């Protein structure tokens, strides 16, 4: 009997290698779990019936193009769209023999922090179905937390892997910008989008990251990894210099339970042998969010222009092309994409470009420099991943600014292109709290080592209480 709630991908690999279970049996176990729990959670948008591959199955966020398998970005405008090609990450998973379980739910075009913006209905948090799983990769993190997939891929623009990983009590990595191919990923904000792994353990995360990372000739913004990805073994944090950015740890809106859990974890970091010191990222935290909300919508307004009803996806017929465009896009896009298209179009317009997009790009350099300065004294920076634990469905849907604030702690390092790992570090009000570790560019191996040592010491039980 395979317990998908507990089984890690690494353990599943061992079972397969020892031939204790077959790939078909393993897959069937997850299918059974999906059939049992997904009607309540709605982590999946589409289930694959006849997957190929003899390895540990995987779920992919529905912005990841999969040849012949519907890829909708949770938008009506792409309902029924089946890509004619595999994204590079999907192809790498296929090459590694990982069978595709299905495609997971998200906020439409990855725009959101709760997975409530899906055109096909929200995903619910496995720890408490009245709450959101976070977002936008909420389908992937909920699926892993609820044992509906051993591991999954998400995508992260402003925090879309780290934040839902935190809210669902799983591990998520946002890789260094340029280390994972974006080829075939439905684009939201090209200069920020990055695909990354979601899993129950840091070691699983490293294994999956090793599968997908590396330069891709089809994505000009990717680079060669300076070193291969290693599966971490570390048991302590000796010699590690850990910075605690005051502005990230004392930001407005951090719930006391979250602060407490994070502060206990920082004590543990010290006990494991790391040197811990305070540092400051004042401008990154003050300007990160507003600049993000200029750059990401600007790029989105351009990236979403291709959904015009001409070649694929939804078309609402009309007598002339202009009206066809208008009707198609009016019916095809939900409120959040529309809001961001309008914001972005405005920010790029003649007369506003310099004040908005141009200025935001300059601030981005400031943010990068400020982080670089902090990394002169520290190897890793830590903070809560999300200011709050999972919130109730509907709690923020009427207030976009409150929703945007969910990413206030993840956005600054994202704007700097840096990698970030979120690991669960405890519970507050019975809900998981995420601990964010930020590293220098290409320091994924270091993040994995630190995360792994901490994870062992924390001994967090990733199985949601109500599913035990």
């Amino acid at each position, binding site marked *: 009997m395979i317990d998908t709630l507990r089984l890690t991908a690494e353990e599943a690999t061992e079972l397969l290698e020892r031939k204790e279970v077959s790939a078909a049996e393993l897959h069937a176990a997850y299918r059974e779990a999906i059939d049992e729990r997904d009607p309540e959670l709605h982590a999946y948008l589409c289930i694959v019936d006849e997957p190929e591959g003899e390895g540990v199955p995987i779920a992919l966020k529905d912005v990841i193009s999969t040849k012949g398998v519907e890829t909708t970005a949770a938008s009506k405008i792409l309902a029924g769209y089946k890509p004619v090609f595999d994204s590079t990450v999907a192809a790498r998973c296929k090459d590694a023999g990982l069978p595709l379980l299905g495609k997971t739910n998200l906020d439409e075009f990855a725009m959101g922090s709760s997975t409530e913006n899906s055109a096909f209905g929200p995903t619910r948090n496995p720890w408490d179905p009245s709450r959101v799983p976070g977002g936008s990769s909420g389908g992937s993190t909920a699926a892993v937390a609820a044992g509906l997939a051993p591991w999954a891929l998400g995508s992260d623009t402003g925090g879309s892997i780290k934040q839902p990983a935190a809210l669902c009590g799983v591990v998520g990595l946002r890789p260094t910008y340029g280390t994972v191919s974006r080829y075939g990923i439905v*684009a939201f904000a090209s200069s920020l989008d990055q695909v990354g792994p979601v899993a129950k353990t840091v070691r699983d995360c490293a294994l999956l990251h090793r599968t997908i990372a590396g330069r891709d000739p089809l994505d000009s913004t990717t680079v060669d990894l300076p070193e291969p990805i290693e599966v971490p073994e570390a048991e302590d944090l000796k010699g590690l210099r850990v910075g605690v950015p005051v502005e990230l740890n004392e930001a407005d809106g951090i719930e006391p339970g979250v602060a407490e859990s994070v502060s206990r974890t920082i004590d543990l970091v010290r006990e494991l042998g790391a040197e811990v010191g305070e540092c400051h990222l004042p401008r990154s935290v003050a300007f990160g969010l507003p600049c993000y909300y200029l750059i990401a919508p600007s790029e989105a307004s351009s990236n979403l222009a291709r959904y015009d009803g001409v070649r694929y996806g939804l078309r609402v017929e009309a007598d002339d092309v202009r009206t066809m465009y208008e009707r198609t896009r009016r019916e095809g896009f939900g409120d959040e994409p529309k809001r961001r298209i309008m914001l972005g179009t405005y920010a790029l317009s003649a007369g506003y*470009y310099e004040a908005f997009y141009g200025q935001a790009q300059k601030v981005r350099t400031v943010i990068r420099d400020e982080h670089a300065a902090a990394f002169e004294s520290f190897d890793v920076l830590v903070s809560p991943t999300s200011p709050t634990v999972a919130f109730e469905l509907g709690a923020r849907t009427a207030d976009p600014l409150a929703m945007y604030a969910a990413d206030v702690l993840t956005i600054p390092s994202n704007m700097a292109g840096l990698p970030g790992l979120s690991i669960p570090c405890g519970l507050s009000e019975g809900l998981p709290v995420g601990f964010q570790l930020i590293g220098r560019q290409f320091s994924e191996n270091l993040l994995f080592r630190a995360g792994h040592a901490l994870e062992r010491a924390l001994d967090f039980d990733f199985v949601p209480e109500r599913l035990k």
Partner: protein
Amino acid sequence: MSWEPVIGLEIHVHLKTRTKMFCRCPVLYVETPNTQTCPVCLAHPGALPVPNEKAVEWTILLGHALGCEVPDRAIFHRKNYFYPDNPKGYQISQYDSPLCVNGRFVVPGPDGDAVVGIERAHLEEDAAKTIHVGGAEGRIHGADRSLIDFNRAGTPLVEIVSAPDIRSADDAKRFLQLLRQTVVELGISDAEMEKGSLRFDVNVSVRPAGTDELRTRTELKNMNSFNFAAKGIEREVRRQIEIYESGGQVEQETLHFGSESAPPLRSKEEAQDYRYFPEPDLVPLEPDRDLVERLRTKLPEAPAARIRRLEQEVGFALAEGLVTSGRDELYSRIPGERAAVANVVMNELAATGVDPARVNAEELAKVIERRTEIPRSAFTDALAASGSPDFSADRYLAEAAIVDVSELDPVIERILSENESQAEAYRGGKEGLLGFFVGQVMKETGGKANPKVVSDRLREKLEA
């Protein structure tokens, strides 16, 4: 008051790279619609551009030929607009950091050089082709339906923008001819207007001669030949002068030329806001400096320099004609009297359509040298055959020409004795009869005699 035209050109040249600008689809114009496509040039979700290195290299090469600087860093921008031929909703182009800037292109004229500044030469991708069915004039408005062929979508295009330095329609035409020839000689484009691989727009304004003001300009679009462009510019210059002289103001507008017979359609184009921003899917281009220098050394002798060199031999008009038609290389290979060679190469030989590169110059030289001694038909036959591998002048000269007077004389004498009354009449003043005798002799010789030699000899005999 005298007026001076102020003319600037914007030229688009298709590069004949093997594959498209940002994907691996072949650049082919002959295939059935929508067969040369892929997720990238159809803008499927998630597809990303990868720049064509050859296209970058060729643009730098062209930049050198236009005397441009090649900055250390060039950036692709997105130019955003909605149109069915623009699959991504944006065109990848270049904006404030193009590959080539600040050039200088010398255009020789009969009265000295026109030096035209080149503001920029940048690389971008072409749009798809749309065909509007039904409705009026093949325009999208009022069409029953529109068909799109994406074979052309994403093919590499260089845009060259001149400074408003051109002062006459003739100079504009010369600039275009010389630029076209430059591009062809670099081997980077067919630059054929009929195929659409060379297109251009012209900006025209006028100002009081001697001032440096820039007045409102109009844009002339879709002109399908250089001659047509020259006429269009002249007409537009006259129109603007008339407006100013009658106290009016020129309005900024676009003139769309359809066919040569119809007057251009005028439209007011609203200033479009393209919301340019740096293409985040691409990293800045930083051309390798060694490559940039190596490309500079690859440049052949500039057409302008060759015009000036040949001008010494055959005068400006022929020199310009030879160079801009790509026939000067052949001209230089053929020995003999320069003006004669130039004229034959530019006129009779050009009319045969023989590929200049295949012509056997040594043999052709013999034919040209003796062209007045052989019948017209034999001469044109020789020209037409001059490109075939076994072409030999001797055959045409031997077969055709009876040039030896000793061979002609017996025939002439027989004709004269057989037609004594006509000979008398000629000597009595009816000189028009010379033609009759020439005709008789030609008939006797089966057309192989040179009519000029025959008539000279006849006159001698008759007047002896």
